[in-house]
């Protein structure tokens, strides 16, 4: 009688464990694959973002023929009217486009004069290694609040910078001859107004010969 009770109890316990298992055994390979699938892939994200969001938004960039005279006339007013900033702090970004004449070429910069009658370096397209968040933060298309882990958000910057280095700069190097006219769209970060506004240091997103 007692043995029968034990058997019933064990059978019930086994049944419960079968219906509501205390743990699941998953093959290690499956677990690793699932984790990798759930992980954020910044390169893939940046590639999709570049094609589907960034390039279609280039028409929203402020024209350099409007922006540069505005900065020269009143940098504070230009900042209010045309820049965007992220969080708290002094740095801000311009998202701009325009056509300029190449007045100088170095290892790290292609310098443009925007005004036809000028030979001043008004815009310096950055052609060396690309660092920082100008592309990620300059257009306003990406928002830090959409990323629970800021490491993912920062990884987007590196992936976007890599696209500039591999897709945009090789073309620009071919176009950059003194005297040539180049149409550009890009982002500039202004951290120190005394050095970053003249010339405006622009990381190019797209360039075309004109």
């Amino acid at each position: 009688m007692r043995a029968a009770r034990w058997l019933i109890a064990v059978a019930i316990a086994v049944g419960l464990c079968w219906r509501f298992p205390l743990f699941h055994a998953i093959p290690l390979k499956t677990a690793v694959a699932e984790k990798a699938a759930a992980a954020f892939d910044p390169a893939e994200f940046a590639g999709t973002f570049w094609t589907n969001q960034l390039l279609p938004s280039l028409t929203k960039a402020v024209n350099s023929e409007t922006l540069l005279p505005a900065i020269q006339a009143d940098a504070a007013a230009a900042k209010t009217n045309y820049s965007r900033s992220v969080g708290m702090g002094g740095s801000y970004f311009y998202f701009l486009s325009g056509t300029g004449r190449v007045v100088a070429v170095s290892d790290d910069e292609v310098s443009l004069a925007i005004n036809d009658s000028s030979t001043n370096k008004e815009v310096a397209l950055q052609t060396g290694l690309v660092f920082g968040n100008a592309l990620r933060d300059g257009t306003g298309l990406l928002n830090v609040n959409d990323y629970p882990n800021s490491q993912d958000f920062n990884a987007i910057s590196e992936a976007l910078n890599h696209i500039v280095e591999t897709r945009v700069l090789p073309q620009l190097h071919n176009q950059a001859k003194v005297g040539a006219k180049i149409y550009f769209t890009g982002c500039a970060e202004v951290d120190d107004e005394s050095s970053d506004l003249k010339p405006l240091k622009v990381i190019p997103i797209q360039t075309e010969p004109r």
Partner: protein
Amino acid sequence: MHTTQMKIMKSNWLKMALACLVTMAAMLFTQGALAQPAPKQKIAVIISTLNNPWFVVLGETAKARAVELGYDATIFDSQNDTAKEAANFENVIASGYKAILFNPTDANGSIANVLKAKAAGIPVFCIDREINSTNAATAQMLSDSYSGCVKLGQYFVKTVGKEGEYAELLGIVGDNNTWNRSKGFHSVVDRYPGLKMVAQQSAEFDRAKGLEVMESILQAHPDIKAIFCGNDAMALGAYQALVTAGKADQVKLFGFDGADDAVKLIAEGKMAATGMQFPKTMARQSAEFADAYIKGKRDFPQKVPVLVELVTKDNVDKYGDYGKK
């Protein structure tokens, strides 16, 4: 006058006098009660560790701003221990605090604590350190460590050169700031193949551990040209190790935080650079957010990145006292 009438009048007079006394006593009592100030509402400041002057400044500034805004504020020290942090939260939730200004110990491990406070109707405002959730804290004021360390990395290449061996001291491995700083720095420095990192170890954002770890690194790698530290406390420990080894003049030292002692070393030419975070700005803002919440505001940005500025020998005179002069 009839004797009976006189007795009645006397009795009435006594009754009136008694009524007046009772009324006056009641008025005095009521006035006393009205004059008693209502108890102040309480704000808790929970800090990851007070064993680092930078975090002491963060906590004390948050507390001072909360007091300025009319609250009773208390600082709780989590001693870099998530269990102690959990106990601090339990205590705060049970004690009727209206808001928590919070410097987390762990980006993932601290989320549960914040969610507990949220479930209890207490808003949490993270300061300096992030938690990996956008629906737990009411807002997070975060130093933009990544951008700050991109600038540090660029200055590192400019001053150290494009070749040579260097070492890195990491902070607490469970903290996002540790990796945002390291990754920002490496996003630049790793592009120069001649710069070789020969050692990378955690000293847990701690000065004593910074000294200890750097002593062993210097023994194994005596030819390093530079050291990058994820915070100034570790950099100051590393500096002591360099002095003891007689290498303080040969090895360039880079930190992060903007601690007063580090800024002084930069001014004396004994340290190359640091990233100035603005702990006072973040701490004050968190207290002001809490005050606004208590007064009814509900729409806060989830994350507020706070700019980090590069401090070098060229601009060091503009900085001090954990911020810009």
